[in-house]
């Protein structure tokens, strides 16, 4: 079931997406967190962040909108208390990085470079819920390349760059990140949405807008994976509303080598394990390896 994303080898292609599975350790009581391909942990910044004013989440048709604002415990607490626990539990850890400038991303990359038990870094240039940084780095090629390069120069770890569906031209952003040293790309992050309580005439989120996720955005994500796969030679990790085996296959056929399960973790925290079991069965029955599925959609 192993898959290779450049220098990063995973025991299977089923990962969990940043922000939807905490730091992983919280789920050790409901599942074996070492069994899944990798855990992309909640985005880590240099300093702890309190997050946005509530309400921070609301439900929408076949999905949800969140405006958490990257609330996280910060680098020090993560490295001192959470990372050792993840190592003990045998989890494959991808650290999702959030900085407000290329320098902050570089600083985080350098600090994590010397830590044990990290499989890769995932550079978040696509969060829609923060005032500085985030999505602003991900909508055009130049800032995306600048952040990627800054991280690349300071770490020997595999670098994954997480793309935004709001990029003006996602293939160009993908190409720029690749040329700046990204080993793999993950896509998509959430897309900005809004919901209004028509009784009170107030937005349902404290931050007015937030990032949409869940099955509602899956066709958009599949299309973007397909476009990037056609345009750029780089391993892709597909994300966006995956909740069952069928969805995994769809992303792989569109061009993803691995996938991340996001919102479906809230529906059931064991979703990734259950999908993995179905995926293994599928590969066995069909006599295919995961790699043989990648980009196999027939469009002619």
């Amino acid at each position: 079931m192993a898959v290779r994303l450049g220098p990063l080898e995973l025991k299977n292609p089923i990962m969990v997406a940043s922000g939807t599975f905490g730091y992983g350790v919280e789920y050790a009581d409901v599942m074996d967190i070492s069994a899944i391909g990798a855990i992309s942990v909640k985005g880590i910044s240099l300093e702890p962040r309190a997050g946005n004013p509530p309400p921070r989440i609301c439900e929408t048709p076949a999905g949800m909108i969140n405006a958490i604002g990257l609330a996280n415990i910060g680098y020090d607490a993560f490295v001192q208390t959470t990372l050792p626990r993840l190592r003990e539990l045998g989890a494959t850890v991808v650290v999702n990085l959030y900085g407000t400038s290329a320098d902050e991303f570089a600083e985080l990359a350098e600090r994590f470079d010397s830590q044990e038990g990290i499989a890769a870094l995932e550079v978040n240039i696509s969060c829609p819920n923060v005032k500085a940084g985030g999505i602003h780095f991900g909508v055009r090629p130049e800032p995306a390349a600048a952040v990627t390069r800054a991280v690349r120069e300071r770490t020997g770890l595999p670098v994954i760059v997480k793309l935004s569906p709001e990029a003006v031209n996602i293939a160009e952003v993908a190409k720029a990140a690749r040329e700046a040293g990204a080993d793999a790309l993950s896509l998509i992050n959430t897309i900005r949405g809004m919901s209004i309580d028509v009784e009170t005439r107030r937005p349902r989120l404290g931050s007015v807008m937030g990032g949409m996720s869940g099955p509602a955005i899956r066709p958009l994500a599949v299309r973007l994976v397909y476009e990037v796969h056609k345009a750029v030679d780089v391993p892709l990790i597909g994300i966006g509303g995956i909740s069952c085996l069928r969805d995994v296959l769809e992303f792989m056929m569109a061009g993803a080598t691995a996938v991340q399960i996001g919102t479906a973790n809230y529906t059931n925290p064991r979703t990734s394990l259950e999908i993995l079991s179905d995926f293994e069965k599928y590969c066995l029955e069909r006599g295919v390896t995961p790699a043989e599925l990648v980009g196999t959609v027939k469009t002619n």
Partner: protein
Amino acid sequence: MARVTQVRYPEQGYALIWFRGDRQLAGNPGQFVMVRGDWGNDPILGRAFSLVESGEEEAILVRVVGVGTRRLAELKPDDPLWVLGPSGHGFALPASDQNPVLVAGGVGIAPLYFLAKKIRETGGRATVLYGARNNRETPLAEEIEEFADLVVTTEDGSAGRRGLVTEPLAEILDDTSVARIVYSCGPEAMLEAVARACVDRQVECQIALESPMACGKGTCKGCAVLAADGRYRYVCSDGPVFESREIYKS
């Protein structure tokens, strides 16, 4: 995966759902479960409910407010129910010299019903002040009378005293001949009024909060509330029960 064992409809628009899983949850009053039926992707999130009972029997009280709660209310015995929990911190039981006063607003009766029962089992007896808009919105009122002293208030006077639940609360707290402890769950405005009544009279008050929630496990950081110190607390992992002073400025 649990299974529904029994459903009762104490009032129009409410469902009391009993369920059983592979193991007993052994939850405490004030703790909650995330619950979802087997209905595909829409709505996608589970719903958080206070436990009304836990142990031999597990039960939640559902008030129908939207699609998810309507689907829950339509469940039948033997239907599958996905349950995560019990989660969060429950109520701290009263000390032997504290007379418990439980103040419920509407469906906020759910965790207080469980608490009143637990207090009775441990040899005490709670006074329950139950406020609602009208006599059609007082589920569990009859049942709770079996093990607690009940005072109902309704805004339209269709049951019990006409007025707000904070009025009998003030009368009880003004009698300072016995030590009291207050527990409350209900709408935000009521909780704040209850908390204020307690602070003014230096009575300990524990409140159970509600919030939209995605994970119910402390990871998504979706259920933030702004506390009295200007920092955020998370209803699912720091609560749902808080000392009222932690949340409301005095």
